[in-house]
C-alpha cells in the first residue's frame, strides 16, 4: 500500500503548504508586496509555541498564543516597514530586498536565541500513530490535515461572508478606487498582514510538531507555496490551496519514478516551463 501511504503523506504536506500559500496570497493580492519575510513569521510561530510548551503551557493555548504573536509581528512589519517604504516611493524591487533583509534578520535572531540545532517539541502524544486501513498516520499529521482544512474553509468564509473580508477584496481589486472611496487601504493592509500572519502560524506550529524545528527552513516551503499561488492563479484562494496539494503529491509520487535528489529540482523546473507558456496561472480571476 505504498502508493496510498505516499498519497496520504502528500495530502498532509499539501494541506500545510496550502495554508502557507493562501496566507501569502492574501498579502500579495491585496498589498502587491512579495512578502518574503512571511517565511520568517512562519518560522517564528514554531519557536513561540515550542518555548511555551517547554514551560508547561497547554497545547491549545500555545498554538493560540503563537498565532497572536505572529499577528502582532505581521502588523508591525506592515506598519513599520512596508508602509514606510511606500511613503518614500520605493519600487517593488526595493521592498522585495527589504523583505529579504528582514527574513535574514528574523532567521538569525531565532538561531542566536534558540541555537541552530533541530529542536523537537515536548509533546509525546504527537508521534503516536493511528492506523487507518493499511496506512499509518501520526496524531501530528492528522491534526495538521484537520486544522489546515479548517483554516482554508475559514478563510473562504471570511473572504466572502464577512464585512472585513469583503472590504479586503474590494481593496485588492482596485486600490486606487479604494483610496478615494475611503476604504482606507493602509489600515486594511495592516489587518491583512496581521490575519495572514496569524493563519500561517498554524502550519508554522503543526509542521515542526511532526518534523522538528529549525531556524533556516522557512524559505523552501514559502517558495513552493508561491509557485502554488501563481500556478493556481493569484486571487483564487481555492486555486492556491488545491495546487499546493497537487505539488506536494507530485513531489511525493515523483519519488517512485525519479531519484529523490531531483524532486525539488523538478518542481522548479516544471514551474519555470509553466512560466514560459502560461504565466497567468490555471485559475486566475480576470484582472
Amino acid at each position, binding site marked *: 500500500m505504498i502508493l496510498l501511504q505516499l498519497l496520504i503523506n502528500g495530502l498532509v504536506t499539501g494541506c500545510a503548504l496550502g495554508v502557507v500559500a493562501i496566507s501569502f496570497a492574501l498579502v500579495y493580492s491585496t498589498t502587491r508586496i512579495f512578502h518574503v519575510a512571511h517565511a520568517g513569521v512562519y518560522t517564528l510561530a514554531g519557536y513561540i509555541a515550542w518555548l511555551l510548551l517547554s514551560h508547561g503551557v497547554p497545547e491549545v493555548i500555545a498554538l493560540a498564543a503563537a498565532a497572536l504573536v505572529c499577528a502582532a509581528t505581521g502588523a508591525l512589519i506592515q506598519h513599520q516597514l512596508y508602509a514606510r517604504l511606500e511613503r518614500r516611493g520605493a519600487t517593488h524591487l526595493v521592498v522585495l530586498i527589504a523583505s529579504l533583509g528582514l527574513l535574514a534578520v528574523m532567521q538569525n535572531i531565532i538561531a542566536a536565541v534558540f541555537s541552530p540545532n*533541530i529542536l523537537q517539541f515536548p509533546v509525546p502524544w504527537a508521534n503516536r500513530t493511528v492506523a487507518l486501513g493499511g496506512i499509518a498516520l501520526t496524531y501530528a499529521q492528522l491534526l495538521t490535515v484537520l486544522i489546515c482544512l479548517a483554516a482554508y474553509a475559514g478563510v473562504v468564509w471570511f473572504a466572502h461572508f464577512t464585512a472585513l473580508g469583503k472590504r479586503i477584496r474590494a481593496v485588492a481589486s482596485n486600490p486606487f478606487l479604494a483610496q478615494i472611496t475611503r476604504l482606507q487601504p493602509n489600515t486594511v493592509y495592516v489587518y491583512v498582514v496581521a490575519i495572514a500572519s496569524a493563519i500561517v502560524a498554524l502550519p508554522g506550529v503543526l509542521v515542526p510538531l511532526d518534523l*522538528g524545528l529549525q531556524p533556516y527552513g522557512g524559505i523552501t516551503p514559502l517558495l513552493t507555496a508561491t509557485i502554488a499561488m501563481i500556478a493556481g492563479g493569484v486571487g483564487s484562494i481555492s486555486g492556491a490551496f488545491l495546487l499546493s496539494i497537487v505539488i506536494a503529491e507530485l513531489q511525493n509520487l515523483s519519488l517512485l519514478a525519479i531519484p529523490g535528489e531531483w524532486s525539488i529540482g523538478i518542481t522548479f523546473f516544471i514551474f519555470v516551463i509553466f512560466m514560459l507558456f502560461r504565466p497567468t496561472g490555471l485559475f486566475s480571476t480576470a484582472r
Partner: protein
Amino acid sequence: MHPGLRYGLALLASLVTAGTAAAETIHLGAVIPLTGPAAVVGNQELRGIQFAIESANAKGGVHGNKVDVQFEDNQAKADQAVLLFNKLVDLQHIPMMFVGYSGPTLAMAPLATRKQVLLVNAGAQADKLSTASPYLVNTLPSTSDEVKVMVKYLAEQGKKKAAVLYENDAPGIGGRDDFVDLFPKSGGTIVAQEPVQFGQTDYRPALLKLSAAKPDVLYVVITAGMPSLVQQLHEMKPDFLVAGSTFMADPAAIADPASNGIVHTQVQIDAPPDLAAAFRKRYGADMDFFARQYYNAAQITLTVLDRLVAENKPITGKNMHDALFQIHKFQGLIPMEFNSNTATVPIGINEMKDGKDVTLRQVTAQ
C-alpha cells in the same frame, strides 16, 4: 657521548632555560562553521576545544605558557576557509589550527602543505582527507574504516540485501559510496538507495520507497535529524535491521525508545562522568560526540606543545607536525596511535537499547 647522557644534559639545559624564559601565550587557530546549518556541529567543536584549553590554562598552561585559540567562522564554505587560513597564518603566524567539515578542510589542505601549518581534524571523515596533505592529521577514522567494520558485522549477521538512506552532501555521499562498494564484496546486494537533504526532516517518502524494495538491512548515513528519523522509522514498524555509523549517535535519538534495535559503528570516545558533568555545568549542554572529539584533539595538541616547550623548540607548524609523529601514541580521552595521517582508534559496534547505547564489541581499525 652516551645517548642517555646527551639526553640528560639536554633535559637539564632545557629545564634551566625553560625556567628563565618569559612565559608567552601560545596562539593557535580554529577554522570551523559557526553559522548556517553546519553551526550545530561547529559550536560543539568550539566548546570541546575551549573546555580543554581553559582547563589547561587554569592549571598553569603549558609549562607556564597560556594557550589561546582564535576561532574563525568558515560558514562551512571553501572560499571563506581559504581566506581565514591565510589571515591566521599571515597576520597571526598561527602554527596550527583545528578544522572540521570535509569541503573547507580539503580546500585548506594544499595551503597547509605549502605553508607548513598543522591542521588537526577531529570531525570530518571524508576518505580523501587521509591523503590530502602531510600536514593534515585526522584523529578519527575515515568513513570507509567505519563502513568496513559494519559490513563485516552485517555479513556475520547474515544480512544479504541492503537499502541505503544517505544525506545528499559530502559525508553522506562518501558513506554511501563506501557502503555500495564494500557490501557486495562480502556477498550482499544493494537493493535500493535514496538521498535526503541535509536538514530535511521528512523521511517518510524516502523510507516508504526503500522499504518497498524489501531489504533486510537499511544502512543510514545522515548527520542531522536523527531524532525525526528514528521516530518515523518506528512508525513504519520495519521488519529490517537499521544500521549506521557514528553519525547516528545523537543523544536525543538514543534516549527515545523508538530507537531500540538500531546498530551502528561507534568511534569509541567517552568522557569520564565528572568531565561530562563539568562540561554540562559550563555550557548547559551535553558533551556530545564532536565536543568529546575536539576535547581529545585539544589534549593531543597540548601534549605536542608540552613536548616542544620542554625541548625548547620554537612552536612552528613543522615542529608540531614532527613532534606529533614522533610521540605518535597519545592518551587523551582515549588511546590513539598515529602510524599515518589518520589515527588508529578502536571502533565499536553499538546497539541502542532502552534509552542507552550499548557496546556489543570492539574492533581496532586497520
